C-alpha cells in the first residue's frame, strides 16, 4: 500500500512537470464546451433556392413569394432557364431549383391541378430529403389557399361534399426537448468525447514513454508488483478524468443552464466507471506499442472507432447489424446514452443501472487485460 502511494506521487509529479497537461485538463474542456455545441446542428434552414419561372403569372409569383418568405429557404436567384440554374448548383451557389411550367396558371384555374419540378442537391441526403419535403408542404399550403379563394368556381353539389371532408388533426409533442434544440442533445456527447480524448491519449503515451526513455528498466528491476505498477499509472488519470467531468458539468450548467434532471450523482458515478474503462484501454495500447508514434496512431484509431460508432453523431439504430454488435461492447455508446437519459429524459439511477452494469463489466475486462499485458522483463 505504501509503495502504491509513493508510485502515485511520482506519477503526479511527472505529469505536472509538463506545463501543457494542466492547461489541457482545464482549458480544453472549457473551450470545447463553449464553442462547438453552436456548430453542431442537423437543423435544415436557409436552403438556397433558385426559381425558374416560365409562367410569370400572378399565381407563380405568389408561390415564389411564399417560398422566399419561408424561413427554410433563401431565394438565391430567378434565372431565365433551367441550364443557368443548374450552373448555379454546380458552383454551389444554390442547393435547390424550383421549375414552374409555362402553363402553371392555366392548369391551376382550368384543370384544377398543376405540377412543379423540384431538383435538389442530394449529396447531403438528409438535407435533400427535408428540403424537398418543405417545398411540398409550401405547395400544399398554397393549394389550400387557392381552394379557399377559388371554391366558388366549383359546381355547388361537389362544393358541399368538399366542405364536409373529415379531418384528422395531428398534435405532435416533442418530449424531453420541446424546442428541438440540438445543443442539449449534443452537449452530453461532448462530455463523453472529452473524457475519451483526455483519459485515452494520456495513459496510452505513458508506459511507452518510459520504454523510449529507458526508465522502465529501472522499474523492472525493483520488486514492485505488476498490479501496483499499473494501478499507480492508472489512478492519476482517474483523478484527471473526475476533474474534467466536474469542469464539464459546471461549464454546461453556467453557460447553457443544463443540469442532469435525473441525478447529478448518477452522472458523476457513471463517468467514473467510464474513465476507468478508457484509461485501461490506453494502458493496453501503451503496453503493446514500441514507440510513441505507434501508440499515438493506435489510440487515435480506437478513439475514432469509439466515437464514430458510438452514437454521438449518427444513431446506432440506423447502423447495420454487425456495427450494432460492435456498439454493444463500446463504452462510449453506453455513456453517451446514459448521459443523454440523465440530462434530457430525467431518468433516475435505477433507469440507467443496466447501462452502468455493462460499463462496469467493460471496465473490469479492460483493466485486467491492462495488468496482464504489462510484461515485466529485464
Amino acid at each position, binding site marked *: 500500500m505504501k509503495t502504491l502511494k509513493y508510485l502515485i506521487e511520482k506519477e503526479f509529479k511527472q505529469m505536472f512537470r509538463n506545463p501543457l497537461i494542466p492547461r489541457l485538463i482545464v482549458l480544453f474542456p472549457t473551450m470545447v464546451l463553449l464553442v462547438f455545441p453552436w456548430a453542431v446542428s442537423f437543423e435544415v434552414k436557409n436552403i438556397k433556392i433558385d426559381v425558374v419561372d416560365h409562367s410569370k403569372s400572378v399565381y407563380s409569383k405568389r408561390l415564389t413569394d411564399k417560398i422566399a418568405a419561408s424561413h427554410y429557404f433563401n431565394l438565391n436567384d430567378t434565372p431565365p432557364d433551367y441550364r443557368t440554374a443548374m450552373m448555379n448548383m454546380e458552383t454551389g451557389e444554390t442547393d435547390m431549383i424550383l421549375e414552374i411550367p409555362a402553363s402553371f396558371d392555366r392548369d391551376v384555374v382550368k384543370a384544377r391541378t398543376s405540377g412543379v419540378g423540384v431538383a435538389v442537391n442530394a449529396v447531403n441526403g438528409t438535407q435533400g430529403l427535408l428540403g424537398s419535403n418543405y417545398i411540398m408542404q409550401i405547395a400544399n399550403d398554397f393549394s389550400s389557399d387557392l381552394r379557399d379563394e377559388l371554391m366558388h368556381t366549383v359546381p355547388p353539389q361537389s362544393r358541399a361534399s368538399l366542405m*364536409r371532408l373529415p*379531418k384528422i388533426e395531428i398534435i405532435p409533442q416533442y418530449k424531453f426537448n420541446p424546442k428541438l434544440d440540438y445543443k442539449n442533445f449534443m452537449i452530453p456527447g461532448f462530455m463523453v468525447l472529452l473524457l475519451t480524448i483526455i483519459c485515452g491519449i494520456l495513459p496510452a503515451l505513458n508506459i511507452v514513454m518510459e520504454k523510449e526513455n529507458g526508465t522502465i528498466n529501472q522499474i523492472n528491476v525493483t520488486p514492485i508488483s505488476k498490479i501496483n505498477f499499473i494501478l499507480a499509472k492508472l489512478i492519476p488519470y482517474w483523478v484527471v478524468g473526475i476533474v474534467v467531468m466536474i469542469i464539464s458539468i459546471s461549464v454546461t450548467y453556467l453557460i447553457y443552464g443544463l443540469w442532469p434532471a435525473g441525478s447529478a450523482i448518477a452522472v458523476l458515478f457513471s463517468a467514473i466507471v467510464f474513465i476507468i474503462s478508457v484509461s485501461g484501454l490506453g494502458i493496453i495500447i501503451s503496453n503493446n506499442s514500441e514507440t510513441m508514434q505507434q501508440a499515438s496512431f493506435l489510440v487515435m484509431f480506437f478513439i475514432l472507432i469509439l466515437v*464514430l460508432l458510438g452514437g454521438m453523431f449518427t444513431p446506432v439504430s440506423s447502423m447495420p447489424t454487425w*456495427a450494432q454488435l460492435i456498439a454493444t461492447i463500446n463504452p462510449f455508446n453506453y455513456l453517451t446514452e446514459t448521459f443523454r*437519459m440523465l440530462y434530457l429524459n430525467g431518468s433516475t439511477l435505477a433507469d440507467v443501472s443496466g447501462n452502468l452494469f455493462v460499463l462496469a463489466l467493460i471496465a473490469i475486462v479492460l483493466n485486467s487485460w491492462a495488468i496482464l499485458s504489462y510484461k515485466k522483463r529485464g
Partner: protein
Amino acid sequence: MKQFIAFVKKEFRHIMRDNRTLLIILGMPVVEILLFGFAINMEVQDIRVAFYDPTPDAFTTGIAERIRQNPYFNHQGNMYSMDEMNASMRKGELDLAVVFPQNFQESLVHSGEAAVQLLSNSSDPNRGSISTTYASAIIAKFQQEQIDLRQIPFQIQTENRMIYNPLMKSSYMFVPGIMGLVLMIICTIMTSVSIVREKERGTMEVLLASPLKQGTMIFAKTIPYMIISFVDFLIILILSYFILGVPVNGNLLLLFLIALIYIILTLTYGLTVSTLVDKQVNAVIVSAITAMIPVLMLSGMIFPVDNMPRVLQAFSSIIPARWFIEAVRKVMIQGQGFLMIGKELFIMIGMTLFLLGITIAKTKKRLD
C-alpha cells in the same frame, strides 16, 4: 541533388525498418473506411413505437396496423396507461407513442374532426422530428383513403429529383469527410511526432551539422511521408469506389491533384506543430486534438457549414479539411472540372505557404 536523393533514401529505410508502424499507417485507413463507410448512416430507422388506444375501433386499429407494417417502425406493444408510456420513454425504450382519444371513430364521423397525439422522444431532435413526420404521413394517407379519393381541386403536385445522389446514400456525403479526417490525423501525427522525436533524442543536432541545407533536409524528410500518405489516399479511394460504391464522376487526375495538395498541406501543418513543441507527448496531444475535433465539428464532414452561426463559419474556413472535403465532393460526386475547384485549391496552397512561413521563421529563431 545526389545528396538530396541519398537523404530521401535514408529516410525511407528508416521508415521501412519499422514494420509495425508501417502496418498501422497503411492498415488504419482500410479498417476505418470500411467501418465508417458502411456504418455511418443518418437515416432514421427502427423507430420503436407503441400505441395507447383506450377505445379501439376500426379507424384506430387501421392506423395502428399501417404504422406497424411500415418498415421504418418497430412495434413495441400496446400501452394501457399514460404512466406506463411515460416510464417507458424515460427509460429510453420508446421513440414514439401514438395516443388516440376516446371514441376516435365516432367523433371523426359525427363532428368531422378528431385528433391524434404523437409523442416523440426528442432528446435527439433529428430523430424526434423525423419519426413524427413519418407517422403523420402515414396517418394523412389513411385519411385520404377513407374519403374515397374524391378529386380535391386546386392541387399543386411537386415532382422531385435528387441530383448527384439519386439513391440518397449516406456514404456519398461521408466518404470525402472520412478521407479528410483520416489523412489529416495520419499526416499531422506522422511528421510532428517523428521530428520532435529526433529533437528529443538529440539526433536532430547531428543532422543539422550535415552539409545539407536545413530547408532541403526537412523537405527530404517529408518526401517518404508524402508517398505513404498518397498510398493511403489511393487505398481509401479504391475501397470507396469498389466496395462502398461511391462514384468517381470527375477527372481522376484532378482528384489526385487535390489529394496531393491536401497531403502537402497537412504534412506542413505537422512540421509547424513540431517547431512549436519539444516533447513527443505534447506533439501527440496538439496534433491529435487539432486534427480531430475541428475536423469532426466544423469541416462540414458531418454538420453542414451553412447551418452554423457566422462566427463559426468564419472559424471553419481556416480548417484545411473543409476545403479538401468540398473539392473532393465537387469532383468525385458532382463530376465538376478544374475551374469549379479553383477557389479550394488556391486556399489550400495559400495555407501551405503560410504554415511554411511560420515553420521557417520558428526554425531560424531556434538556430540563432
